[in-house]
């Protein structure tokens, strides 16, 4: 491919998370040609970073990696990672995307994924793929089952010492790599741009991120994951195996003053799942979930919740008002108990916040699809055409149109692929 080149395809999928992958596969299996663009270094989205998934407790990798691999090897799918979507316009049965692929400083065609560069690199940087709990290197394969298995260099942490370039067996390291612009012309587009989480910073009630051993749910996923930072659950402040762990639900959701007024939809279930996994990993630990309502609404979810209760996980109804540092690395959780004891403080070794869910991408300035008041992409026929956006030929799937769990995202991704297929056919292509 050359700079400035134009690629044509039937469908462009924006975002290579689980929804985007499913949409792409469902289109490609009908022999439509698909291009996926992904902003990250690897496809797989949030799901590939998770430990296990509710309500089946399948390991997340077991479900995600095969879909990633099928998409990567599908004859009708082409994937571009590490891309920025600069502009997306639609007009009479066609869409046009201007895309910039950011430099990895490693030639993707030459890199064989041997990780020699990573081992030789002298710079340790906090590993974002491990919740920052351990380090990776300035040049690295992003994570063990990333696709593509291509190294990338973070120029912000690089000393230009030249070690990686010297050791690379295929001469793939290229310190001078430049961003690369190209255009995609497609008949239709599916936006599957997913979600991100609100941050602890800016929530003084919860310690603004300054209280040790208060972690986010995504960090807890890493602590529980098979190739996590410690390969077990430890308290990050000192490596202690925690005896008491608490989950704080709606830490940012269902409360305008704390961030967002809407329900983030899947936090109840992942908190219950994490609690169950913890009670398996640490059978002697006390585990509590502070909640307002337990929203276990999907197929098999309520049964999952009842199983967690039967396992001895403590469910405490009450909104947590304050989280503060306590002695010896403990975390004090203050809440209003509803058993009549009033405001109560409990100390825990580790506290997990179920933060709010936000859209990961805003079309503002890039694409003229409308967003709703909640900033997620608006759907114009929410009941009978939940994947239709305000622009004809542009469809939406997954958490891009509001928080959604994996099961619902996959179902919606299939639906978006169906609408997109019919749109392609209606254009006579």
């Amino acid at each position, binding site marked *: 491919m050359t700079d400035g080149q134009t690629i044509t395809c039937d469908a462009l999928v924006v975002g290579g998370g689980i929804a985007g992958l499913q949409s792409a596969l469902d289109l490609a299996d009908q022999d439509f040609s698909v291009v996926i663009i992904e902003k990250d270094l690897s496809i797989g989205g949030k799901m590939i970073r998770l430990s296990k998934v509710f309500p089946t407790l399948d390991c997340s*990798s077991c479900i995600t990696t095969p879909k990633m691999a099928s998409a*990567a090897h599908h004859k009708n799918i082409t994937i571009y990672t590490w891309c920025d979507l600069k502009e997306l316009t639609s007009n009479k049965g066609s869409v046009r995307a201007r895309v910039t692929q950011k430099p990895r400083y490693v030639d993707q065609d030459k890199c064989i994924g041997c990780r020699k560069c990573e081992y030789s690199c002298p710079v340790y940087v906090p590993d974002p793929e491990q919740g920052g709990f351990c380090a990776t290197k300035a040049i690295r394969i992003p994570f063990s089952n990333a696709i593509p298995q291509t190294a990338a260099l973070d120029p912000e942490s690089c000393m230009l010492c030249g070690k990686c370039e010297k050791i690379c067996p295929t001469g793939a390291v290229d310190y001078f790599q430049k961003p690369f612009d190209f255009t995609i012309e497609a008949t239709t587009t599916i936006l599957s741009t997913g979600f991100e989480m609100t941050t602890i910073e800016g929530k003084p009630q919860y310690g603004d991120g300054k209280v040790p051993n208060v972690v986010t749910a995504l960090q807890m996923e890493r602590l529980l994951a098979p190739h996590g930072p410690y390969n077990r659950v430890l308290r990050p402040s000192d490596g202690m195996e925690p005896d008491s762990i608490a989950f704080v639900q709606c830490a940012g959701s269902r409360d305008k003053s704390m961030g967002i*007024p809407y329900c983030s939809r899947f936090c109840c279930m992942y908190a219950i799942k994490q609690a169950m996994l913890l009670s398996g990993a640490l059978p002697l630990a006390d585990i509590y979930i502070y909640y307002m309502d337990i929203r*276990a609404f*999907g197929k098999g979810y309520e049964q999952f919740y009842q199983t967690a209760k039967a396992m001895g996980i403590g469910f405490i109804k009450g909104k947590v008002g304050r989280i503060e540092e306590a002695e010896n690395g403990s975390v004090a959780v203050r809440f209003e108990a509803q058993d009549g004891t009033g405001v109560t403080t409990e100390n825990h070794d580790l506290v997990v916040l179920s933060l709010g869910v936000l859209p990961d991408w805003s079309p503002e300035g890039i694409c003229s699809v409308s967003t709703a008041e909640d900033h997620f992409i608006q759907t114009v026929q929410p009941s009978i055409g939940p994947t239709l956006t305000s622009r004809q030929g542009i469809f939406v799937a997954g958490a891009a149109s509001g928080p959604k769990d994996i*099961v619902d995202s996959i179902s919606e991704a299939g639906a978006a692929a169906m609408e997109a297929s*019919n749109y392609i056919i209606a254009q006579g292509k």
Partner: protein
Amino acid sequence: MTDPKKMKKNKEKSEKIGVYICYCGGNISDHVDVEKVREAAEKFPGVAVARTNSFMCSDPGQELIIEDLKNGVVDRVVVASCAPSLHENTFRSAITRAGANPYIYDHANIREQVSWVLHGDKATYKAEKLVAAATGKAGLLEPLDPIRVNARKHATVIGGGIAGLKAARVLADRGLEVVLIEKTPFLGGNAAGLDTVAPLGEQCSALIAELAKGVLEHTAITVLTRSEVVGFNGYVGNYNLQVKTTLSSSSAFDKAAGHVVPFEGDNADTPTEQNVKTGAVVLATGFRSYQPKTGEYGFDDHREVLTLPEFIKQLSEVNCSGDILELNGRKIRAMAVIHCVGSRQIPGIHEEDENGYLNEYCSRTCCSSILHAANTVKEQFPKTNIYDLYRDIRTYGRGQEELYDRAARNRVVFLRFEAGNSPTVSANDDGSDYALKVTIEDGLTFSEEIEVPVDLVVLATGMEAGDVSDLVSMMKLPVGTDKFLQEVHPKLAPVEMSVSGIFLAGTAQAPMNISEACNGAAAAAVKTASLLSKGYLELDPYVAAVDQDLCRGTGACVDACLADGALEMIDAETENGTEKKARVVPALCLGCGACVAVCPTGAIDLKGWSLKQYEAMVDMIVADELIDI
């Protein structure tokens, strides 16, 4: 343990078996000593290499297999990982990418059958045995070709509710011929009984009208109302449905039973039966509304206790002014709504039905639905007091939390109860003219007991699986413990059923709202389109094959055959003249092996699962024990 390498070698067996054992990121390796299994596997006869990976299904894992095949290190592949239902296809396609035949592969399930049920040495021991058996079989595997059959570009949708209408329309737009079969004379299903729907307050009849219009006007869709499937046979891509259409006058469906009638199909006025030849079936058979037992929260005992669908219907017919709701001439000064009626039932707490059954699931839609109804009442009749008795408010979806907020602003009073401490509904005896009183220990005010006199109680009744027992037995469909139809896997194959070519749409699968049912329907449609749009299908070649030289034409196999038409007797020309011989129709063969067991001459065997392969598996399982004797 005796070295199994010393076992007698079979020259026909592959000597280049590759064994690939998965850690499953701890799912397996936490209980099975994977490296020990690998060491053992290396010593099994015919094994060229044994490798491990933390996720064999990941790209780097698959790459191990591909490299070994390409380099000629292996020519048979055994993967020891999770259940083959999850990743058999993943590994087969990896083998295909390496340029090899996908059927030179066998699978050892060491997760579901080992690490999830056994621990410690036992787990490792069993994993070794399963891998041993798989290598035994793999040595005898031969390349096979899939069976290619024509697929009809035709789909049948069963059920004319929201999901069925949506599925039929998008399938027809995709270019397939569609037959939509609906049991009742009406289209719209359960939703036809609704008024405005949560969370946006859209008029449900308008939604149905739009969907139904798209279906009725589409030339590629044939709508058969008052029709039922009474016969089913064939195989994926080529199913035959026997469809019986009854007279509308003989219909047992009462138009007045809470259903509006937005559309009626254009069927002939005589009972007919026809054969529908189709490629795939989408099941959109819907749900039925939970009917409370007599006495459950006063239901049947007090006429002032209504189910949610009954209340919605009565509310939609209200024609009164003023600031207090009036139903059937009765002023409703205060009403209570009770959540989770017939849902979220807990063993030991709730009363089982006559079959010992509980609805343990959440019905997903009732919280939003009842809050929407409460808001409708409060916004029109602000002086009607509403008490909302709930366990958890589950307004999870877009626009739903707003309903909850709005209800609070509308001064709906929320009271919370625990599953084990349900509120009671009884006749009011406090001397006032309220008909009923509701008693609850309110968890929001330190479990204080509260008595509320009311004129009306509405039960937020949930969804139950529709009765599709006839289809279940006809099509051999799997049903979950919640009685809803069961998908293959909630994430890997969420609308697929274990019967190939049969898909799930909407509330036949689980409780869903309209939006979710439409997504489910379109997702089922896209799988149907992928399956049928090429016009042909490839089926696994695990079918019976007859050795014509050995066949003596006894016909025992035909008698034993479980699949109609899969085996037949033909006149074959041999050197002895015309002889009776058995012949297999591969597309119809189930690969069950019933014929193999009865053949007196061993002339019939299963491709990919031959007797010899079974023997080799058993030999390997007992190998060291036998030698030790």
